[in-house]
Each structure stands twice: as structure tokens, then as C-alpha cells.
């Protein structure tokens, strides 16, 4: 298996390369964003370990670029920041998992194995269902190329439905994933918000988007 490690801390990069080679991987090192892209475009890697703080190109941007170019190999992000926004930035850009520094080397090995095991299907970050485009990272929604303004809750709802595009999703699931787990309201709030979404995403475009499945829930379908 061929790995690309993108890390500008020489010692860390060196020790990881050493260890992973002993584990049986072939390892290439890149110390900047530009170098990383160069490597990735020339060689085929089975996985990439990518530090977010690198010179000449933010690690997250590298990730986004790689995905944009149709490269779907598993990517594990390394970050020194443990804030929520910092942790999900990488995931939103298309990475598969992250580790906060300082991390356990054993944990790195385990996570690497896990993401490689999951395989490398196309996992675009922008969710597309028919003429609807939902970009979780940029928090934008477009239908037929036109941008639509949604509230945070409405966005969370359409994102979840889009991720499960084509599948019927129950109200209970929506309640659990889109609303706070201790939400004290009724499941009716799901219906209310689906109503809002329909008003914003169906009416102005004259085409249906969210179908009600009686007794089961809702499904996002391309018309």
C-alpha cells in the first residue's frame, strides 16, 4: 500500500514515515500543499495522511482540491486544533477521519486501517439530487442553479434528506439527527419544517422535491 504523508514538521513526518514503513507501507513525504498536489497527481496513493497546517496551501484546501479532481482515496486529517469548527472543516472538505495532535501512534494505525477498509467510493462533498445541490461546507443550497436562502434548521433538514437521497427517512430519525436529542417538542415540528422547505424549494420552482410517504416518513426525490 502506498501512502502520502503531508506534514511540514520534519520530526513528526520522519517518525511517522519510519513507523509506517516498518508496518509495511510504502511512504512518500510532502511538506507543502503544492508539493502534496504534485505528488497526488503523479502517483496513485491508497491513502493520504494530511496535516491541516502546512505552508503553501491549507491542508483543507488540498483535500478539497483532490476531491474536486475526482481523487477519492481515504484521507486522514491531522490537526492541532480541537475546536469543533476545526475538527469538521476537514470532514466537510472530503476527508474521512481526523486525529487531534498529539495523538497515539497506535490510534493512527487503527484509524488508517479503518478508512482504508471502508474503501474509496466516490464521496462527493456536494450532495446532488436531481436539480438540487446541497453544499454542507459552504452552507448553500441551489436548485436549477438558483441559490435559495434557508435557516440553519431548514438547512440541516435538507442536508440530512439529501444525504439519504432516494431513501425514505422516518420522522423519528429526522427528529434525532436534525433536532437536539433533548428536544421537548412533538414530531409535528418535522412536518412544519418540511412545509417550510417545500415553500422555499418546491413552490418557486414548480416541481416537487420532497415526497410524503404515509406512515413512513419523507423521501427526497428527483422529479
Amino acid at each position, binding site marked *: 500500500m502506498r501512502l502520502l504523508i503531508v506534514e511540514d*514538521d520534519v*520530526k*513528526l513526518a520522519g*517518525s*511517522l514515515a*519510519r*513507523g509506517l514503513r*516498518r508496518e509495511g507501507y510504502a511512504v512518500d513525504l510532502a511538506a507543502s500543499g503544492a508539493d502534496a498536489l504534485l505528488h497526488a497527481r503523479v502517483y496513485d496513493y491508497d491513502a493520504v495522511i494530511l496535516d491541516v497546517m502546512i505552508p503553501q496551501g491549507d491542508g483543507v484546501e488540498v483535500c478539497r482540491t483532490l476531491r474536486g479532481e475526482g481523487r477519492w482515496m481515504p484521507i486522514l486529517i491531522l490537526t*492541532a*486544533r*480541537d*475546536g*469543533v*469548527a476545526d*475538527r*469538521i472543516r476537514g470532514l466537510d472538505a472530503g476527508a474521512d477521519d481526523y486525529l*487531534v*495532535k*498529539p*495523538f*497515539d*501512534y*497506535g*490510534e493512527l494505525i487503527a484509524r488508517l486501517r479503518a478508512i482504508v477498509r471502508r474503501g474509496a467510493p466516490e464521496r462527493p462533498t456536494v450532495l446532488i439530487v436531481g436539480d438540487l445541490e446541497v453544499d454542507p461546507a459552504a452552507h448553500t443550497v441551489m436548485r436549477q442553479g438558483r441559490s435559495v436562502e434557508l435557516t440553519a434548521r431548514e438547512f440541516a433538514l435538507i442536508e440530512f434528506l439529501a444525504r439519504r437521497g432516494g431513501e425514505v427517512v422516518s420522522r423519528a430519525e429526522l427528529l434525532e439527527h436534525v433536532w437536539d*436529542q*433533548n428536544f421537548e417538542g412533538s414530531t409535528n415540528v418535522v412536518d412544519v419544517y418540511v412545509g417550510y422547505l417545500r415553500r422555499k424549494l418546491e413552490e418557486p420552482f414548480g416541481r416537487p422535491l420532497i415526497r410524503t410517504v404515509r406512515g413512513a416518513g419523507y423521501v427526497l426525490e428527483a422529479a
Partner: protein
Amino acid sequence: MSAPIRLRLTAWNVVLLAAVLLALGAFVVTRLRSDLTASVDSSLRAASYQIARGWEAEGTPDFIDVAHTVLPGPARHGSGAQVLERSGPVTVSVGDPIVEAPLIAGRRLASVVGGGRISFSLRGGSPSEHLRLIAVPVTHRGKRQALVVAESLAASDHAVNRVLVLGLFGGAGALGLIALGGWWIARRALVPVERMTSRADRIGIEDLAARIPEPRWRDEVGHLARTLNAMLARLERGVQARERLIADVSHELRAPLAAIRSELEVSLRHDALEGDARAAVMSAHEETVRMGHIVENLLTLARLDEGGLELLLARVDLRHVAEEAAASYRAAANAAGVELAVEGDPVTVRGDRERLRQVIGNLIDNAIGFAPRRSAVKIVVWRTDDEAGVRVADLGPGVPATDRERIFERFERRDLARSRAGGAGLGLAICREIIEAHRGRIWVRDGDSAGSVFILAVPA
């Protein structure tokens, strides 16, 4: 308290008014008196002219006639006229008995007889006898004499007294009103200051973003508010700078710690280390892990101070997280002669992977610290219908019932115990904050046979 200020303001007001009233009163009374006297003088002059003419022309009969005519009721107190010669008794007199005796004498008499004219006042025996007199020179039958005419000042005295009395009562009343009114005004003026004081009183270190509402007016009170707010802003910036420094420094430590840890772990795993070399590397590794925990706790603290711990919620397997946490403390456990055992089935909850690991890790760290050598610390993952969690049990001395709440207490932010960053003192408080942010609970009870069991529970 402002009472002295209010008291002072009112007192000064009253004193000032009293002084003004006194001055005004004195002025008015003096003027009145002199005006009234002048009016009496002018009437006396006219009277003395008439009487003098009568006396000089016709003598006594005319003297008496004219006197009766021009003097206001001659028998009335104080009015009268007399003629005097240089030496000797009264030649003739009319009116009030007082004029039967000479009213002037000596040098004064001599000067009038010699041609001068004087006006003066005289007080008689009783308090109501107050006379105004004029003495003019007259000549009768070749003899040079003095004519003295007197009028009572009773009326003018009465008028002045009335004014005085009115003034005194009025003045006292005014002073009383001013005292009350002034007191009330002073109170009103100081109400904004009182409000500001109580508002400022409520602002504490947790609240440094708060400000005192600034009144519109650009006066002393507004200035005070603005100054206090400026001071609060400076304090806030100072505290924030301090917190940022802690966060920045802790953050900077992450990169070198990551590098060291990686080197040591790779070496331990892949290099043929033996004996002392292995022991040394293991020891260094242990300390590195410990430093990592301290940095993590410090940064969490900084975040809590900044006002909020955000959680990255995802589906998390508590068993896996517990194993990760145990793994990071295995070396420390070995060094303490304590065995770590993770038990229980995998259970998925919605939580923040890193923060839950931090909590379980802190509990394990705590347990290792209190567990006796050659004992085991059991980490058990459990679940019920609506909750799931982790129990960390040790066979140490246990926690006395009185301390069971206190040990989780959120220490004062002002606490210098920040410097004990790695100690369990910090860890448990952070645990509570994190678990409560997960809408869970964390508590401690006695172990079945000995020691303590720390339990965390989150909604399943």
C-alpha cells in the same frame, strides 16, 4: 453611603439660604427704619418751622396754638415741643410730659442756641417711649433760644417690628422648606449614582463583558459611568489576553508534543529496544502522554472560560472511547503498579469523541492516583433503557460523603489552582462541565467492598 453627601448638600443649602435671608432682612429693616425716620424728620422740620414762627411772633399763646395744630395729638405719647434757654429750665412746653424737662443740654444746647440745628433720637424710660427730635434756634424778645420738637417713633417702630416678625417666620419657613426640598433633590440627584453602584456591584469576573448603562447627559454622573465602563473594558481585555496567552502557549506545545510522542511510540513499537534503553524510552513516553493531558485540560479550561464548550456530536462507541482512554494511561498505570481493565459491550451514543475520551481519561488518571499497588482499576461500559455510560472503580480510600459534591465543583475562575493543571483537582471539574454539556450526569459513590466508583451517564 451617600448620607453624608446628602446631609452636606442640604446643610450647605440651608446655611446659604440663612445667610442670604439674614443679609436681606438686615438690609430691608435698616432701610425701612431709616426711611421711616426720614419721614418723621421731615414732618418734624415742618412742625418746628410753624411753631418757631408762632413763638417768635406772638409768644406763648401762639406757641401753644400752633403746637396743638401741627403736632399729632400733643397729649399722645411722645409728641411735644419745648423752648429752652442756654441756662435754666424749660421756658415753655406743650404736649407729652416728657417735654417738661429739658431734652437737650450742655454742648448740644449751646450749639443750637448758637445757631445750629440737630436731629436726634431719644429713648425714654419705658420701652414704648421712642422719640425723634429736632432742635432749632429761635429768637424771642431778643433772647436766643432752642426750640425742641419731638415726635413718637412708636408707629415706625411698630412697622419695623412687624416686618421683622414676618421676616423671621417667613425665613424660618423658607429654611424648613429648603431643608426638606434640598434633601429630596439631593436624593434624586444621587439615585443614578446608587443605581450605577448596585449595577457595578453585580459585575464579576464571569461577567466582564457587562457594562453600566450610560446616561445621556455629559455630566459628572455620565462621566463616572463612562469611566467605569472604560475600566471594565480594560479589565476584560486584560483577562482575555491572559486567557489567550494560556491557550496560545498550550497550543504551541501540541506540535512538539506530537513529534516527541510519535518518535517515542514508533521507537517503542519498531526498534529493538532492550533493558535500560527501553525503560528510558517508556518513561519519556509516559511523561509525554501526561504533558499531552495537561495541555488538553488547560485548553479545555480556556475554552470554558471563554464561555462555552462546543461539542462535535457524532455517533460514538463508548467502549472504543474507553479503550482509547485506557490505552493512553496504560504506562502510567504500570508505573503505579495498577492494572487497567476495560469491560462491557460496545454501546453507541451521541457525543463528542475527543471530549468523552478526555473525561474517561481524567477519571482513570484520578483512579490510578488513589488505587493501591497491585490492585485493579475497572472501567466498565454500561447501558440502561435511556442512558449509557462508563463506571471507573478503584480500591482506594474512597471519597467521604461530605466531599462527594465538592470534588466536582467548578472552582473559582480566579483560582490560582490553575497552576495545578495536571492535578485531579482540575480534571474532575472539567469532567462535570463536559458531561453536563452532553446533558448527562457524573457522580461518585462508594465501591461495593472498598474504594470509589465514579460514574458518568449520558442519554442513550
